[in-house]
């Protein structure tokens, strides 16, 4: 027991460092302004209040932006999953000329400097009539998450023995049915963890949302709104932290929903190794 003490202490330090910033955000969001501005900070919500959340939610258009973000993100992630699944299948289960080159390109695509493409993307969006449209953002987010999704799904697919599918084929299933009934369930953890990644990436994106939504201000997304929130509310750290908390909430929820699957995938992988 004594021997474990330093180890447990170290673990405690890791936990505190990991959690504190997030805790501090939530705490500030629930702390009355008077206490936030006190000389000595309080580390416990002595008089919790919802005033900051009210300020944040009542700010102009909050729900619209929240909904825009959610719609764009969800659509981009699902699109990426669908497209990536096809490509990953081709890469993991078939032999064809150009396969190596394709994989290499997918790897390189992961390095794409997205912010550097702002100007050319702006020009392309303008020239194809896609400026000021949420659908353009959806497409871009789909593309930013696609390479990673393909790489990861390919990894998962490769670890599912093709014999399972063949067995199902023998049982008289069509190829699609075999895939759906046998492979897809086994692939679930992979789909979960990749959608998690895609969700975070798209949910966070600021530069394109800021540059491509110009006139239709009702089509702005949450990160853009959050960035101007600090201009508007300035020293109102309570409201800013409340807005950040609301911004984090969907990601946290998705994590909680998907996490069990992700960890089970992790363990499955571990056991197999």
């Amino acid at each position: 027991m004594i021997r474990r003490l330093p180890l447990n202490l170290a673990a405690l330090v890791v936990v505190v460092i990991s959690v504190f910033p997030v805790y501090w955000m939530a705490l500030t969001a629930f702390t009355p302004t008077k206490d936030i501005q006190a000389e000595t900070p309080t580390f416990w919500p002595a008089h919790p209040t919802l005033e900051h959340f009210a300020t944040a939610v009542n700010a102009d258009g909050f729900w619209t932006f929240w909904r825009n973000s959610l719609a764009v993100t969800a659509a981009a992630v699902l699109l990426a999953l669908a497209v990536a699944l096809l490509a990953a299948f081709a890469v993991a289960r078939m032999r064809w000329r150009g396969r190596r080159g394709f994989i290499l390109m997918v790897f390189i695509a992961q390095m794409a400097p997205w912010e550097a493409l702002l100007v050319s993307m702006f020009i392309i969006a303008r020239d194809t009539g896609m400026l000021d449209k949420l659908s353009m953002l959806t497409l871009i987010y789909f593309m930013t998450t696609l390479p990673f999704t393909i790489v990861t799904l390919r990894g998962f697919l490769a670890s599912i023995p093709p014999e399972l599918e063949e067995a199902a084929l023998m049982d008289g299933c069509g190829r699609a049915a075999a895939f759906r009934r046998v492979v897809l369930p086994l692939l679930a953890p992979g789909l979960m963890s990749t959608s998690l990644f895609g969700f975070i990436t798209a949910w966070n994106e600021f530069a394109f949302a800021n540059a491509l939504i110009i006139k239709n201000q009702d089509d702005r997304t949450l990160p853009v709104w959050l960035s101007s929130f600090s201009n508007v509310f300035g020293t109102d750290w309570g409201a800013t932290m409340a807005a950040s908390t609301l911004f984090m909430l969907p990601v946290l929820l998705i994590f909680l929903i998907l996490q069990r699957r992700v960890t089970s995938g992790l363990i499955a992988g571990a056991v197999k190794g």
Partner: protein
Amino acid sequence: MSAPSLAAGRRETPATGPPPAAAPPRRTALWPYLLIAPTVLGAAYLLLYPLLRSVVISFQHFRTGELIRGGAAFVGLENYRAVLGSEEFRSVVLRTLVWTVVNVVLIMVISTVVALMIARLGRRMRLAVLSALVLTWATPVLAATTIFQWLFQSRLGVVNWLLVTLGLESFRDYTWFADGTSTFAILVTLVVWQSVPFAALTLYAGLTTVPAELYEAARIDGATSRQVFTEVTFPILRPLFGLITSLEVIWVFKCFAQIWAVSRGGPDGATTTLPVYAFQVAQSLHKYDLGSAISTLTVLILIVALITHLRRMVKQEGEHL
């Protein structure tokens, strides 16, 4: 930043990948191409075309006027000459390398230590650490940058309060974001804080795949903990370390949102890395041509830096075939 892959880790673990399917090419020679068609089409419109456009711009005189009216003239290598000839660019490249090395080294060392620690913890403590890491991981970048700005506020920031309470009077109302070095340090802290969870969780997943017998054997041979790590753990997990390091290099090198949100590359350029510099030149100064040249050079530098990683990837694919 993000979420990759629990699965990527898995793919790298030995013996996971079965030989690729003997999928019958005879029957459906066209199928694979149909399956990758959406990916290829999407990439052509949303990645390749913008990329080409951007490269073309880097060979043109392209400022606000050209953006609005069109009709940009080609100027050959002039933009590249201007960029490469400037003192500022060289110092930005150097800073970007320092930024990448500092961050990646810290991330890898801390993650390894944390992963080894988790493996040794009791069940309850392990769950606590894992949950804490997942919470950090789930924090969106923009939320995290706002939080860090609040933590390090000069007047009401809890960090200054803590330092003053600990007796460091000089930190009363200390303005962290006014000084280049301290802003750089805060950004490193932020990026490391956000990146460690993924690396540590993946490494921990990898650690659990190392057969316990190997450890026992090493112990019986009288190996110290350090020897166990360098001679058993590390060699087995080498591919995983390689993969995570490469991913972290890509992310840290390309890191933009955090720096832009916190410091805009300042103060006095102290946190201007290549992506930030390219953005400044293009968007703040409206020199889209120079910005594109910088971006092109950025990608080239990154590819050169990761050439060994790419080589290995391709080789591995070869083995699979």
